[in-house]
Every structure is written in C-alpha cells, then in structure tokens.
C-alpha cells in the first residue's frame, strides 16, 4: 500500500482555483520532487498532503500510523522571544534529551545546541528545522523549498544529506523545489505542476515531456525569454529591483549561452553590493540572483 494516496484534490483561495484534479501517491522510500512555476500550487499541495491544510475537494489517505516530518518553506520567528536551538526542539512538545541529541547530531549541528536561534545562518536554520522534523522518526519527510537562500555549495550539501537520510531511515521524501538541475539528478520521480499535474515520471521522462518544456522552458533562445521567465519567477517587488540588473547582465549571459556543454558558475557583480551567478548545466542555463541587496527573496531562476 502507498504511504500517501490522494485523489481529485482541489483547493480554492479567495475564489481562485489554485489546484484541481490532482491525483498522486507516494511510495515507501522514494524521493519525489514537485516542480512548477510560482503560483502553480506546489506549496499548497505539499501542505495539504502534510495535513496542514484541508483540501476543498478530493481525499487524502495516509497509511495507518504514518508519521510525517514537515519542514515549512520558511518560519518567521519572533525575535524578541529568546530561544536556543535545543529549547526550540521542545516547541511545541517536549522531546527527550536522547532524541534531541541524535537528531542534531545527524544533521551535523550538535555544537549549535546551546546557541540562540537569532544568530544562525540560513543553512544552519534549515538544518534546525530538519532536525525538528527528524525527531518524530518520520515515514515521509516533506520539504518545502528546503534550499531557498542557500548558495550552491549549501544546496548540494543539503540534498546530499537528504539522500543519506533516505538511505539510513528508509523514509520517503517529498519535496518542492526550484533548483531544477539538482532535482533532475536527486529524484526518483518528478511531478511537474501547474494547477494540475502536467506530467510526471522519472526525471528523464519529465525533462522530455512537451508540457514540461512549455512550462519551464528549454531550448537555446536566450534573449527575451530569459528576462520574461525571470519576471514570472520573481515577485513584482523583486522584479522592479532586478530588472536593471538583468538588462546589464544581458549581454554577458548571451555570450555565455553561445558556449555548449557544462560550465560555470560565473559570477556577475551587479549594483556593487550584490551579485548574481549563472552556470551552464547539461540541461540548460541556470542562473540566480543572490546577495545582500534586498532582493534575496527573489527566486529568479531560469532554465533556458
């Protein structure tokens, strides 16, 4: 029997249908990744499967006794409340010292146990959230954009950790991701979502599906596609900040995309304080803006 089985899921927010007719199941021990553009309902789907959100239509069947470790996309924490990593594991329910130590040890942050949450980096915080999810010894680990805001090394490390955990604990992993190049190598199954399931299957099947190509773009026409794609991927606020940078980078990117094969990452300075980087992977040009200039929330990732 599947760990999770969903039939005909639909969800509406404020009169707008975000998801409809979604059927899927998650089997024991597999890594499933949900990809799709912003607003395609990825997080909504994950939250419904985790039981955090109720679907308007359809039904979700969990295997009996199923334990879910859910790592939210981000957790805004009240800074005026003092909180150590160890104490945070006791929220909302107290856990035994042995369990806490084991979980922290496994994700490699045991030395941080007595540190305050406010001083942690993005990657460290991500591991704290993961440790929280591991404490329940989950049958399925659900991760909502777990590597948002991490640099490439951080992303690679994090996905490696997830694969190790899967191998050790035999848990299934269901995650939402934007980092397509990583997804392609690390997943057993990919689900491409845009309000409904456009296509699904092994990474190879999805990569070559016309629906997927139309939705997330592939091919070698860099020019305007590049900018338009980035804009849909950004929140409007970020777009206003990023657009001038994109324009400035444009020529460089064009030059790069002329080259075939894998390469990079190349770093571009933009605006002095921030930087963007771009690398040419086997399955397309990947780039993202990053940096401390205020548009770190921007998820400008494009596949060309």
């Amino acid at each position, binding site marked *: 029997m599947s760990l999770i089985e969903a039939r005909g899921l639909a969800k509406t927010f404020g009169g707008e249908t975000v998801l409809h007719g979604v059927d899927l199941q998650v089997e024991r021990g597999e890594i499933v990744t949900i990809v799709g553009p912003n607003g395609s309902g990825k997080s909504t789907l994950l939250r419904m499967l985790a039981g955090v959100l109720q679907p308007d239509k359809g039904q979700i069947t969990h295997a009996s006794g199923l334990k879910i470790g859910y790592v939210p996309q981000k957790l805004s924490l*009240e800074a005026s409340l*003092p*909180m150590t990593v160890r*104490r945070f594991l006791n929220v909302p329910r107290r856990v035994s010292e042995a369990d806490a130590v084991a979980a922290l040890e496994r994700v490699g942050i045991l030395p941080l146990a007595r540190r305050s949450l406010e001083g942690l980096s993005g990657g460290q915080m991500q591991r704290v959230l993961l440790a929280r999810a591991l404490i329940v010894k989950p049958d399925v680990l659900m991760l909502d954009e777990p590597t948002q805001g991490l640099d490439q090394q951080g992303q690679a490390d994090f996905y490696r950790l997830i694969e190790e955990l899967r191998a050790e604990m035999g848990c299934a992993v269901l995650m939402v991701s934007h980092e397509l190049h990583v997804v392609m190598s690390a997943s057993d199954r990919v689900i491409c979502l845009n309000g409904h399931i456009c296509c699904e299957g092994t990474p190879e099947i999805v990569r070559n599906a016309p629906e997927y190509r139309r939705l997330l773009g592939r091919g070698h026409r860099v020019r305007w596609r590049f900018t338009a794609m980035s804009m849909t991927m950004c929140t409007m606020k970020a777009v206003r900040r990023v657009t001038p940078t994109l324009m400035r980078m444009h020529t460089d990117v064009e030059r790069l995309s002329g080259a075939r094969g894998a390469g990079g990452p190349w770093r571009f300075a933009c605006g002095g304080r921030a930087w963007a980087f771009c690398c040419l992977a086997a399955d397309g040009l990947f780039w993202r803006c990053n940096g401390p200039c205020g548009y770190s929330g921007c998820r400008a990732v494009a596949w060309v």
Partner: protein
Amino acid sequence: MAHAAILGVALSLGFEISLFVGVLFSALLVAALFLALTRRNQSADSALGVIAHSALAFGLVAVAMSAGPRVNVEAYLFGDILTVSRADLTLIWSVAAVVAAWLLWRWQALVTWVLSPDLAETSGYNTKLEELGLIMALALVVAVGIKAVGALLITALLIIPAASARPHVKTPEAMIALSLGFGALAAVAGLKGALWLDTPAGPSIVCAAAFAFAASMLVAKVRGR
C-alpha cells in the same frame, strides 16, 4: 488597554460599581476593538495608537463629566501605591495567582504562538483562543495594577523589566525569571528612593526600572552581545 483603564474608572464612578470590575470591563472592551481592527488589516501600531489614546481621552472626559471636580484624576493616571489597602493586596495576589496558574497551564502553547503563529496553527493549537487568553490575563493585570502605579505607568512596568532581561537570557523561562527580578528590584528601589527623596511612588518605581534597563543595556554592550 492601560489607557482604557481610565475609561473604566469613569464607568466605575458613573455606575457606582467596583473599580476593578469597571477597569476590567473597559480593558476587555478595548482589547476586543483592537482585535477587530487588526483583523481588518489595520497595522497593529496604528490600531494601538488610535485606540489607546482615544480610550484615554474619552476616559478623561467621562471622569470629568461623571464626577465633577472632586475626583483626583491624577490618582488614577499615576496611581498611589501608598493608598493600597489589605483588601487590595488580597485581590492583587489572588489575580496574580490566577494569571500565573494560567501561564503555567498554557505555557507551551503560548511560547509556540508567540514564536510563530504559523507553527502554533500547524501544531494544532487554537491561536485565537490563546490570544484571547493572553488579552484576558493582561486586562486582569492592568485592572489590579492601576491603583498601585496608575494607568499611564503600568505599561512601563509591563515592558521595561522584560526588555531589560532580554539581552541576558537564551530561553523564555530564563527571561521570565530575570524580568521578575528586574521588576521586584525596580519596585523596592523605587519605593526606597521615593521615601528618601520625597518623590511620588509610582513614577519613582518606573524611573528605577528605567535605570535598571539602562544598566542592563550597558552590561550587555560591554559583554559584546
């Protein structure tokens, strides 16, 4: 809420009910108004500014209208700890006990909710209920505290000790313990100072708390945190 207490004073005088009941009633009324406003996407700061000061103004006007010039409004604005009777003390202690018991009971839920409402929601807590509980507890504390330190200064005693404790602690429990210490220290030092310098008691306590806060910040700075 503290400012609304003056409105409560007016109500109590006007309807000849107990001060405690009047203050509690108006504090809860204003809290409900605040919740309603913030639910409508008003920012908490502006809602608080509008409600707190309007409540204060209405309260002052109402006191003047209901009781004539005989009533000394200042006693309610700034309190007079020296008029606190044994009966008042009993009330204060029993309310404190009730609030402390409630805190102990709801502690995990409250910590979760304050830390992250999302987390509380997904952990299965009813955040609306916890919020309501917190507001009731605050209203109770304000209602019993008004006689001792007054409506204007009770806010200071709610905030300053906790703010003084914040840089030195790493867990919510330690923060409570340390802010209790800061509060007690401010009360004792303030009263001693008032006796010694012949100053009004309520404001002296708040001044002592402010000094403690400044000292705490200095220490935190020196320790490099």
